[in-house]
């Protein structure tokens, strides 16, 4: 990856040249690798189906508890295996330090320099660029109406909303995003389980399935195929810009989270799994 980035860094014209070709081929190898992982994921989820219920707080053994048993939602339907926990905990710690030592100071400085309303607009703009991903996944799940709404939103926000800086589709046309579908959810929608939990450096909580989804979503973004964004350098700039801009709008959330939890790693893992489970259910 580093070698392929060199031509662009030297300032050569950013077009699909020999360097770009190699870059794409590295990605396609990664994609094939991911598909293999996905297959593994499928197999493991079928194995898991047999051993899922560990008998927690259900059944006649717990009469007192089942008095309060919530019949609106299956309790603890969202559980996850974590065979790589030691490594995941190291990356969690890494992300924690990354936030406090680098991200937070940089984002606060940026937040002081740029007015809040501007930063919110930038976030809208970044969100708008994700619309093609949401739309494709709506269609992949057969949610044609939602896909159509996402398409309308993308069209309206990119034009009337001035490059997505304002969410005109929501504010003027009362078109809310019907649920931000991604490929991880699409795969889950077709009954494939999480596999196991992964905590990536920089990107944070994920699972085997969602990592495969993330890789696939990469190919659903129009930007991936644009010559001007094929440079790793520009891409890095784009992602760090988005990262810092969006972080500057939620400084304090992570601190609040740490204060309210006993084992932040465990709490974050559970929150992620619960949230994803819910997103797929919807």
């Amino acid at each position, binding site marked *: 990856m580093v070698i392929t980035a060199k031509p662009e860094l030297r300032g050569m014209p950013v077009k699909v040249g020999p360097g770009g070709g190699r870059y794409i081929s590295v990605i396609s190898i990664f994609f094939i690798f991911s598909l293999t992982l996905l297959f593994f994921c499928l197999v493991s989820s079928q194995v898991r189906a047999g051993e899922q219920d560990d008998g927690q707080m259900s059944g006649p053994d717990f009469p007192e508890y089942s008095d309060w048993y919530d019949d609106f939602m299956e309790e603890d339907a969202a559980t996850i295996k974590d065979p790589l926990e030691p490594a995941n905990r190291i990356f969690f710690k890494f992300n924690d330090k990354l936030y406090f030592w680098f991200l937070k100071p940089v984002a606060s400085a940026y937040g002081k320099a740029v007015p809040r309303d501007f930063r919110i607009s930038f976030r809208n703009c970044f969100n708008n660029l994700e619309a093609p991903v949401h739309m494709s996944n709506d269609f992949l799940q057969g949610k044609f109406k939602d896909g159509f709404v996402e398409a309308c939103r993308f069209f309206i926000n990119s034009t009337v909303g001035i490059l997505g800086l304002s969410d005109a589709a929501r504010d003027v046309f009362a078109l809310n995003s019907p649920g931000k579908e991604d490929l991880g959810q699409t795969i889950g929608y077709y009954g494939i389980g999480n596999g196991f939990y992964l905590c990536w450096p920089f990107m944070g909580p994920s699972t085997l399935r969602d990592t495969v989804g993330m890789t696939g979503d990469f190919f659903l973004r129009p930007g991936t195929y644009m010559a001007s964004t094929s440079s790793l350098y520009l891409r890095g700039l784009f992602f760090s810009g988005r990262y810092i801009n969006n972080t500057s709008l939620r400084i304090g959330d992570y601190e609040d989270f740490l*204060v309210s939890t006993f084992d932040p790693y465990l709490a974050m893992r559970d929150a992620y799994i619960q949230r994803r489970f819910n997103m797929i259910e919807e």
Partner: protein
Amino acid sequence: MKVYLGRIICMFIFFCCSAFFYGTIAPKQILAEDEIPLSQLESTVNRIIDILEEGDVEKEWEQQKQRIVPLIDERLNPEVIAQRSLGRHWRDISDEQREEFTSLFLQLLKDTYINRLRSYSVKSDARFYEQRKRGDRAIVYSIVRKDQQEVPIDYRLIRIDDEWRIYDIVVEGVSLISNYRKQFDQIMDRGGYPELINRLRDKIGTEPGAE
């Protein structure tokens, strides 16, 4: 070139019309005929917001907090919260321990989340839009809008003597109590009840925002 421009404009008008049409028919508010859980919850939240807006949050926080705490107390159900957060371990501990745990955990919850009202109340707006009810339990759905982003918050309530009381809050699909249960489960498995109480006391002892 002109042909393309014409097509683009046509497409744009088509999209706008359909979007507008969709917008007018879609957001219907579906309310059950009996809206008691929703209205009780809403009135509590509105009273809290009124208190926060009455004075300067920075200066009069302690005083405001004293008025907010009883409002929240009457809307919470400590027993169910404690029982659900301990899950299967609840039956393994004695009545005194249950009482001790309940009061400590409730204190922790209130300390942590009431202090958050200080910053979260500013410029955010909550809308309660639907409830589902079955027997003596209900879910009230709300959306909190802050910085142009919408966060769905669901409240789970249980009826005790005609008063609906919260026993769980689900933020963006994440159940607060379920999240605590996973953590308590691990603590109980490793260190048992004394460890749990120690950890709770430690947490309550630390100042919010000290980390």
